[in-house]
């Protein structure tokens, strides 16, 4: 089947969704996805971040679809034409959804362990506004203890349902779910029960925001100060392939290996995640690479780092050329063509 996304053509198998096709193409046209998770059956369709415009239904029926569709749950048709970032409606919808997701979000990134690897942060960076129009009081929830391994911060949750699907599809006997209704919906066990199951830790990895974080890693480190390594061990429960998040010689956190869409390559068991924090438990394969715009690269030690020469006197007003561009200092205006390049902000 032939599908065209933002003018880029690709041939895919029947049954492929628009989002999957876009991911095959890659690049800027890939819609953001906060709830869809290719490894979880039935996920997707809820966050509405990945809405796209279908400007031509198919060769057989070229009528455009009147509404924007969720690309993660809409299958491609032969000859379909899709607009992602080339559609103003789509960009507008993404901005809207971002705003909706943020109005009740605590915006506590400075103290959130997810910061730096948070999909909501990335989404806001791309589609969010610097101002808020929401002047009402934000919604909050009573904290609930769900055990000594997983930390639940309900205030940050965007109700993607991924963790519920993990519990349904990976563990036997789900004990948590989505309770209550509407904007009071919440992830909870209802009876403050510990979620203890061999695979429950995967809830942390699938959580797109900081609602479910690793309690054993809590407040230990900003993720961009960690050095991530691929490592493995013989495990009789899971694949044993993980990413170790090191600080010096200390393993501060173990996660599954995540791809560029932040989906795990393979789910891992709680033993690998929580019980093996000694370097000798693991065979370390080498540094793990991240996509180029990830903040985790701040601490990128795989790249050759330029030597910094301090020329304070000379640059005290201007600053270094590369820094000046990064932060678009207003007092030192950019050249016209530079402005074009850095129009998007401090990227």
């Amino acid at each position, binding site marked *: 089947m032939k599908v065209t996304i933002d003018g880029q053509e690709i041939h895919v198998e029947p049954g492929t969704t628009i989002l999957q096709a876009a991911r095959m193409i890659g690049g800027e046209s890939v819609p953001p996805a906060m709830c869809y998770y290719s490894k979880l059956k039935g996920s997707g369709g809820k966050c509405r971040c990945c809405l796209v415009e279908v400007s031509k239904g198919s060769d057989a029926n070229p009528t455009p679809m009147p509404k924007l569709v969720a690309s993660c749950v809409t299958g491609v048709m032969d000859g379909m034409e899709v607009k992602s970032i080339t559609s103003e409606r789509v960009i507008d919808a993404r901005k809207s959804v971002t705003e909706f997701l943020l109005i009740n979000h605590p915006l506590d990134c400075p103290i959130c362990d997810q910061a730096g690897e948070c999909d909501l942060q990335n989404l806001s960076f791309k589609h969010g506004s610097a101002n808020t129009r929401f002047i009402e009081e934000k919604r909050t929830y*009573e904290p*609930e203890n769900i055990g000594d391994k997983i930390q639940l911060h309900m205030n940050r949750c965007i109700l993607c349902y991924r963790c519920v699907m993990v519990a349904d599809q990976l563990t036997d*006997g*789900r*004990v*948590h*779910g*989505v*309770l*209550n*209704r509407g904007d009071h919906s*919440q992830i*909870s*066990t*209802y*009876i*403050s029960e510990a979620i203890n199951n061999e695979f429950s830790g995967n809830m942390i990895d699938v959580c797109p925001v900081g609602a479910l974080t690793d309690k054993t890693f809590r407040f230990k480190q900003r993720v961009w100060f960690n050095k991530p390594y691929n490592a493995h061990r013989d495990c009789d429960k899971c694949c044993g392939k993980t990413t170790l998040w090191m600080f010096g010689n200390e393993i501060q956190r173990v996660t599954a290996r995540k791809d560029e869409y932040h989906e795990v390559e393979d789910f891992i068991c709680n033993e690998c995640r929580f019980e093996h924090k000694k370097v000798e438990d693991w065979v370390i394969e080498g540094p793990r690479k991240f996509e180029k715009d990830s903040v985790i690269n701040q601490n990128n030690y795989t790249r050759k780092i330029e030597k910094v020469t301090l020329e304070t006197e000379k640059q005290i007003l201007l600053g270094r050329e590369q820094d000046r561009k990064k932060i678009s200092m207003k007092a030192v205006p950019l050249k016209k063509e530079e402005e074009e390049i850095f129009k998007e902000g401090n990227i």
Partner: protein
Amino acid sequence: MEVSNIKQVINIDERLTARINELLSHYPEDKKKSALLPVLHEVQDAHDNWLSVELQDRVAEILGIQPIEVYEVVTFYTMFNQQPIGKYMFEFCRTSCCAVRGAEDLMEYTCTKLGVKEGEVTPDGMFRVVGVECLGACGYAPMMQLGDYYKEHLTKEKIDAIIEDCRAGKVDLHKQAITE
């Protein structure tokens, strides 16, 4: 989550079991979960109109599902009460059509008369007044739901009479003959 830890006496007697089995027979053998809503209604009616965690766990057991599946449902639907609600709960509809016909004033009158705020139970555990959304009696406004029945075209006098009837034990919430 706010979960009541008040102890509830659970009594799933023969009549209730028979009724549950009747409801279960309405769905295919392997789709027992479908009976969850009707079963919860029956069980709640038989237990002072509320569902404790223990009672919800019993329902899960009867239907052969995980307790969380029951909790998810109980917290979604407004008719399932997770704590004791008082013997007589006056549920005033306050959506547009009732509101423009004086529902808000009438509800205030009832609250004042009973000396409670919305949502509170009277100290004797008899009454509770709550505002709810559209009950589908818009043409007969103002109105309220009391147990399984609707009280429509309400006036202050009618409210007074209903409160009297409740106090005198003349109101049956679930088994009243259908005459209205």
